[in-house]
C-alpha cells in the first residue's frame, strides 16, 4: 500500500469502481495450482520464449523474452512449462469469486483483471483504503501472491491505476491528473504504434502527455492519443457491463506424471479442496456435493461423485469420504490430471430460543454428521423418522434434516405424563428359537442362550399388519418371564409356524 493517498473525502466523492489486477497472471495461476513451485525458478513459456518468470528465476538472471536454451544455460534447475488452460480458467474463476465476495456487480476485463462496482459498501468498509486492503488480503488467501488494486471513479481509470502502481492505489475524483502523472505511459495501454511514437517524442510518463497542448494532440497524434489524454485528465465514460454471479466452482490440476495409487492423489486433492473451499467460504457458501473427474492415461475420464449428507466444508472428512469412494471405485488406469467441481449450498441457519438452552451451531452439527457418515455410512446416522405404518416391522429411516421432522405435539407431551412402559431392547435381527408348548401355550425355550423354563406367560396378542404389501406379518406376541428373571417378548409367526425372540424387556 505504498501509494495510498491519505486525502479526506466526503461520502459523495467516494470512487465507484475497483479493479483487481493480478500481475503475471499465468505465472501466478501456475504457482497457485502447484504451491510446491513457489521456492523454485519457474518460468512460463509462450511457445519457445519465456513469457513470465518468478522472482527466484529473475534473481538467477533469467529474463522475459529469453529462449529455453538461454534460460537453461543460466539456471539448469529452472522449471520451464506452459500454463494449462484449465489452470488459467480456475484462477480466473477464483478471481471472479473474490470480486463477487465484495460486490454483486463484477465485470471481467481479461484474464487476471476484473472490475467491481463498490458503491454501497460504505457500511461494511467506511474507508476505501480498508476495502482495498481487504481485497488484497482475500487475494492472498486465495494464493495470489502479488495483487494490485486500483480504486477510481471510472472503469478504465481504475484499471490504469491498478496497472500503474503497486499494492492498493486510490484516485479520488478531481485528483486524477495529479495522481496519474507519476504513472508510466504504458499504464494507459496505448497501441504498439502509438507507444512507439510516444517513445520517439520522449513521452515516458503520463505527466509528459499531460504537458502537451490538448488542441494539437488530436490533429498530430490521432484520436487514440486524445482519448488517452482525456483519460489521464479523469474523463472516463466507459459503460459497465456486469455479469451474473457464477454458481459453479471448479478447480483443476494437470500432472506432468501419472499417478497409480490413491495416497498421492489424496494428497494433491487436499490442496485442491482447500482452494475450492476458500472460494466457497468467500462467497458465503458451503459444499453440498462434489464431483471428481479423473483424467486417465488412456484419455478416458473416471468420474467419482460425492454427495454429502449435510453441507459441509470439513476438508479432513471429505478427503476420508473420497478415500472410501476411491477404494470402492478405483480408476482403471493411471491418472494424469483431475478436476473437482463443487455444488454450493447455503449455510444452515437456525433460530435459537430466547430463554431456552443454547443451541449448537447448525453448520457444526452438519460437519459432525458428515464426519460420522464417513465412518459408518450416511444411512446409519441422522435423526430417526418414525413411520407409523412400519411400526410392527420396526423399520425406520434416518434423516439428516431435523427441521423436516414434526415438532413435539401436545398429545405426545400429555402421553409422556402417563406411567411409561418398560423399554423393549430389540434383537436385531430377531433370534429364531424353538419353543415347547403345552396346550398351545409356551412353557419352555429349548435352545440357545435364552434356554429355560417359562415361569409366567402373558398373551397371546394377535397381530396382522401390512397385509397389503410384501411385508405381510401375521402372528401373535407373548410376554414370558423365565426362571432367572428375564422377561422376553416372543413372536409366533403363524404363517410359517416359527418362533422368534423379538427382544428383552430391559
Amino acid at each position, binding site marked *: 500500500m505504498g501509494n495510498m493517498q491519505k486525502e479526506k473525502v466526503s461520502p459523495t466523492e467516494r470512487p465507484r469502481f475497483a479493479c483487481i489486477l493480478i500481475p503475471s497472471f499465468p505465472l501466478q495461476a501456475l504457482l497457485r495450482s502447484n504451491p510446491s513451485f513457489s521456492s523454485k525458478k519457474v518460468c512460463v513459456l509462450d511457445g519457445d520464449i519465456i513469457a513470465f518468470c518468478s522472482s527466484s528465476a529473475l534473481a538467477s538472471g533469467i529474463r522475459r523474452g529469453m529462449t529455453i536454451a538461454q534460460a537453461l544455460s543460466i539456471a539448469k534447475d529452472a522449471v520451464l512449462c506452459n500454463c494449462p488452460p484449465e489452470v488459467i480458467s480456475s484462477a480466473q474463476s477464483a478471481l471472479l469469486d473474490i470480486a463477487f465476495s465484495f460486490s454483486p456487480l463484477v465485470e471481467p476485463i481479461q484474464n487476471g483483471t476484473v472490475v467491481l462496482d463498490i458503491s454501497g459498501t460504505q457500511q461494511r468498509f467506511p474507508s476505501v483504503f480498508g476495502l482495498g486492503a481487504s481485497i488484497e488480503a482475500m487475494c492472498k488467501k486465495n494464493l495470489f501472491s502479488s495483487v494490485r488494486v486500483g480504486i477510481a471513479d471510472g472503469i478504465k481509470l481504475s484499471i490504469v491505476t491498478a496497472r500503474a502502481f503497486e499494492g492498493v492505489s486510490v484516485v479520488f475524483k478531481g485528483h486524477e491528473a495529479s495522481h496519474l502523472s507519476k504513472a508510466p505511459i504504458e499504464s494507459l495501454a496505448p497501441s504498439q504504434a502509438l507507444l512507439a511514437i510516444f517513445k520517439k517524442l520522449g513521452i515516458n510518463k503520463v505527466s509528459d502527455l499531460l504537458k502537451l497542448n490538448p488542441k494539437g494532440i488530436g490533429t498530430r497524434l490521432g484520436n487514440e492519443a486524445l482519448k488517452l489524454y482525456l483519460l489521464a485528465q479523469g474523463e472516463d465514460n466507459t459503460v459497465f457491463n456486469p455479469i451474473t454471479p457464477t454458481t459453479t466452482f471448479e478447480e483443476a490440476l494437470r500432472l506432468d506424471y501419472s499417478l497409480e495409487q490413491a495416497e498421492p492423489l489424496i494428497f494433491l486433492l487436499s490442496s485442491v479442496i482447500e482452494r475450492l473451499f476458500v472460494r466457497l467460504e468467500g462467497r458465503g457458501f458451503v459444499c453440498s456435493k462434489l464431483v471428481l473427474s479423473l483424467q486417465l492415461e488412456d484419455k478416458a475420464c473416471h468420474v467419482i461423485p460425492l454427495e454429502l449428507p449435510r453441507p459441509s466444508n470439513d476438508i479432513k472428512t471429505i478427503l476420508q469420504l473420497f478415500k472410501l469412494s476411491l477404494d470402492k471405485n478405483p480408476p482403471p488406469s493411471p491418472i494424469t490430471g483431475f478436476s473437482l467441481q463443487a455444488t454450493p449450498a447455503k449455510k444452515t441457519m437456525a433460530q435459537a430460543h430466547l430463554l431456552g438452552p443454547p443451541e449448537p451451531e447448525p453448520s457444526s452439527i452438519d460437519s459432525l454428521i458428515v464426519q460420522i457418515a464417513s465412518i459408518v455410512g450416511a444411512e*446409519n446416522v441422522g435423526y430417526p423418522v418414525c413411520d407409523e405404518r412400519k411400526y410392527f416391522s420396526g423399520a425406520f429411516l434416518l434423516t439428516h434434516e431435523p427441521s423436516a421432522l414434526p415438532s413435539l405435539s401436545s398429545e405426545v407431551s400429555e*402421553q409422556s405424563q402417563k406411567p411409561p412402559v418398560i423399554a423393549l431392547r430389540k434383537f436385531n435381527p430377531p433370534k429364531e428359537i424353538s419353543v415347547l408348548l403345552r396346550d398351545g401355550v409356551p412353557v419352555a425355550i429349548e435352545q440357545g442362550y435364552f434356554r429355560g423354563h417359562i415361569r409366567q406367560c402373558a398373551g397371546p396378542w394377535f397381530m396382522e399388519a401390512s397385509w397389503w404389501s410384501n411385508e405381510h406379518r401375521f402372528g401373535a406376541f407373548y410376554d414370558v418371564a423365565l426362571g432367572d428373571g428375564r422377561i422376553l417378548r416372543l413372536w409366533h409367526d403363524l404363517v410359517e409356524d416359527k418362533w422368534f425372540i423379538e427382544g428383552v424387556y430391559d
Partner: protein
Amino acid sequence: MKAREEIQKIIASIPQVRWATHPKEVLKAVPSGIPELDRALGGGFPKGRISILYSDNFASSGRFSIAIYTVSNITREGGNVAWIDADGSLDPYLLKQYGADMRRILLVKGRMPQKKALKVLEEIVRHAFFQIVIFSFVSWKNLVWTPSLNLRVLKTLEQSRIALLLLCKQKPEGLLSNLCCVALPPLKPFFDERHRLFLGAFLDSPTFSIFLPYRASYTFYPIEGGKYG
C-alpha cells in the same frame, strides 16, 4: 398387597450407587428425570464424566428404560442427545412413545465393530453439542476400553462438559477412574392374574412403580379366557 411388599423389598436393594471420586465433589449433572435416581446420583448423570449402567449379566434390569426415560426428559426440555446404538437394539418408536423430541436425538445405528463404534464415540464427545451421549452395547460380550482411550475420552468430556452414559452387560474392563457406576439388580416381574399382564417394580419412583407391557396406542387383541402358564 403381597406384590406391593415384594416391590418394596426390591426397591430397598436398588440402586447400588458408588462414586470413584471424592464424594463431596460438586459436579454439575444432567438429570435423568427419575427423582429417586437423581437424588441418589447427586442431581443426575455427572457432566464431563463417564456413567455406567450395568447389571452383572442380568438381561432384564431396566437400564435401557432409564436411558430412554432420560433421553425423553432431556429432549422435552430442549436439550440435545446423541445415541450410539452399537448393537442395533434401539427402537425409535419406543422413544416416541416416551414423548421424546426426535428432532433432538442424533442417532448412530447399526451393528458395528468396537473399533468403529469407539471412533464414532470419540468424534461425538469432541463436539459440545449434546447434554448427554448414550453409548449402548448391551449385547456385546465385553468392551475393550483401553487406558489411553479412557484418558482421551475423559479429557474430551471434561472440556466439552458432556455426560457420557454407557449401557452395558457388565462393567467394562479398563475404566479406571472418575466413574459413576450404577449397578442394577434384575427386574422382578409380577403377574397380574386379573388383567393377564405383567407388572413389575422399577426403582422407587411412582412413575415406574408399575409398568404395563403395552400402551393402548396400538390395537392388540388379548384372548378372553386364554390359558397362561
